[in-house]
């Protein structure tokens, strides 16, 4: 299967993805607590601006405004019946923006987590999760997305359900998890766990990786963890622009455009192919990232020390890989 995205993957050394969606929409007046996906319908001009600013700043690929556009999430806003429609519109606006450029620009249909815990620990069954993801996937496909883009996932079960759903929609996909808890996902998945899981899927993603989490340093440590598993599959790095701070009623992430430029180059040198930002990454960050990727020569794979030196310290001592594979501390008197 070839399409615009696979072609780009095959021909480019690195691909610059986009930055934040939520942070940018806030700056356009989105109220805290409201669903960003409603703007696809109510303020398409602002969504168009969101996409355009990313591409103008140098992004080769941008994510649609559909992160919370699944039925489980939209239910909060009484819009559970609009998952397919709002997802479709997000991709239509994206298609329209992408096709105005004379260089290839990829529309990646964003699919975020359901927000629910999967069975047996929680209430969401595999079948229902597949159905929810499938519905959104069909909407994004109808709207003209080149590729589906699963992001910010914590549970391997949810990642697998999405993979199955995307097969039903017959769409190529990429998928990232969020490693925000001592270098693991909230559900305890390490970078090496994820790399192994991805290769075992019946419908594996074209590329996999990490997004969001806790700052740029942690994210690059996760990338090194993927690389250590030796997979040939392209790796995605989409880290936050630093740590959120509160200033005069606004959220501001403390990572400067120059820091994100260093992060982008380090991500490439660490082995990532698709590089972008997440929360707090604005067009001015993307411009610097693009300029740095174009102008700075590829270097050797950075060490952990080089990463912390350039971008700041890690949030935790280890990340559950290599020598840090933690065993339960309690001596056991009986096995479960």
């Amino acid at each position: 299967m070839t399409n615009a995205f696979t072609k780009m993957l095959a021909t480019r050394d690195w691909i610059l993805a986009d930055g934040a969606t939520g942070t940018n929409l806030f700056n356009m007046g989105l109220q805290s607590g409201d669903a960003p996906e409603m703007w696809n319908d109510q303020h398409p001009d602002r969504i168009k601006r969101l996409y355009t600013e990313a591409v103008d700043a140098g992004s080769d690929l941008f994510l649609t405004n559909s992160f919370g556009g699944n039925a489980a999430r939209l239910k909060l806003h009484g819009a559970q019946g609009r998952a397919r429609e709002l997802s479709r519109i997000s991709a239509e606006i994206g298609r329209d923006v992408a096709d105005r450029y004379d260089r290839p620009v990829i529309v990646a249909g964003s699919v975020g987590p359901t927000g629910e815990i999967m069975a047996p620990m929680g209430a969401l069954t595999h079948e229902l999760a597949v159905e929810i993801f499938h519905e959104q996937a069909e909407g994004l496909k109808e709207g003209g997305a080149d590729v589906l883009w699963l992001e910010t996932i914590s549970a391997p079960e949810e990642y697998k359900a999405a993979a199955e759903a995307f097969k039903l929609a017959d769409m190529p996909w990429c998928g990232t998890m969020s490693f925000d808890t001592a270098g693991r996902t909230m559900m305890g998945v390490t970078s090496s766990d994820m790399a192994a899981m991805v290769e075992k899927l019946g419908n594996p993603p074209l590329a996999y990786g990490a997004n969001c989490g806790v700052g740029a340093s942690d994210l690059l440590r996760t990338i090194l963890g993927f690389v250590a598993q030796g997979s040939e599959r392209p790796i995605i790095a989409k880290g936050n622009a630093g740590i959120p701070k509160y200033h005069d009623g606004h959220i501001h992430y403390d990572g400067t455009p120059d820091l994100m430029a260093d992060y982008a180059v380090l991500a490439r040198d660490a082995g990532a192919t698709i590089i972008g930002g997440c929360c707090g990454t604005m067009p001015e960050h993307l411009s610097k990232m693009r300029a740095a990727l174009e102008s700075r020569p590829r270097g050797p794979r950075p060490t952990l020390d080089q990463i912390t030196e350039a971008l700041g310290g890690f949030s935790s001592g280890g990340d559950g890989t290599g020598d840090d594979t933690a065993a339960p501390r309690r001596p056991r008197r009986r096995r479960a």
Partner: protein
Amino acid sequence: MSDQDDDIILADLDDDELVQQMFDDLYDGLKEEIEESVHILLERGWAPYRILTEALVGGMTIVGKDFRDGILFVPEVLLAANAMKGGMAILKPLLAETGAPRVGKMVIGTVKGDIHDIGKNLVGMMMEGAGFEVVDLGINNAVEKYLEALEAEQPDILGMSALLTTTMPYMKVVIDTLVEQGKRDEYIVLVGGAPLNEEFGKAIGADAYCRDAAVAVETAKDFMARKHNRLAAG
């Protein structure tokens, strides 16, 4: 810690051994074993409050520490909390009957727009595990909902959770409203959620930011102790 004693008969253990075994069973999330052990201790004449504090809270403290230190993760903690709940269901009516002391009361919920309740649920469970009474408002709470619950429940602590960049500022809306209505000082306000940090908590006017459920419990206990000291001094 060898495997040879696979078939431990809980009723054959003396009190100390049984409590140690309950620590293990909570750690492993074995609900039926916990329920059985609670019944055994009740039959042996243990006061419900003693079972709660020494066995269940004691065991959950170990779970909380390993969660805080990145040794246990959400799935294991959910199982442990579920086992704890099994024991609590037996003790709850008995605690009320015997007029056991109250540790504190908390109203908790995720803010408007946020349905990510995993962290919030963990905090609720760990707080119950520490002996607190928890009123869970669920997800997607507007400021009015928080205010109503504070009025009706008169808790010591208000806990708010947000997981998204798009919802975390809403915590400030709630705190600002409390300030406007002159009620801010009546409650200890704790906030949490993956994208937050200490500085953010301070900037929006919360009493503390809690990195995870284990820290939330430690912080809540600390503030309750200070509150008691203040009342005693005043």
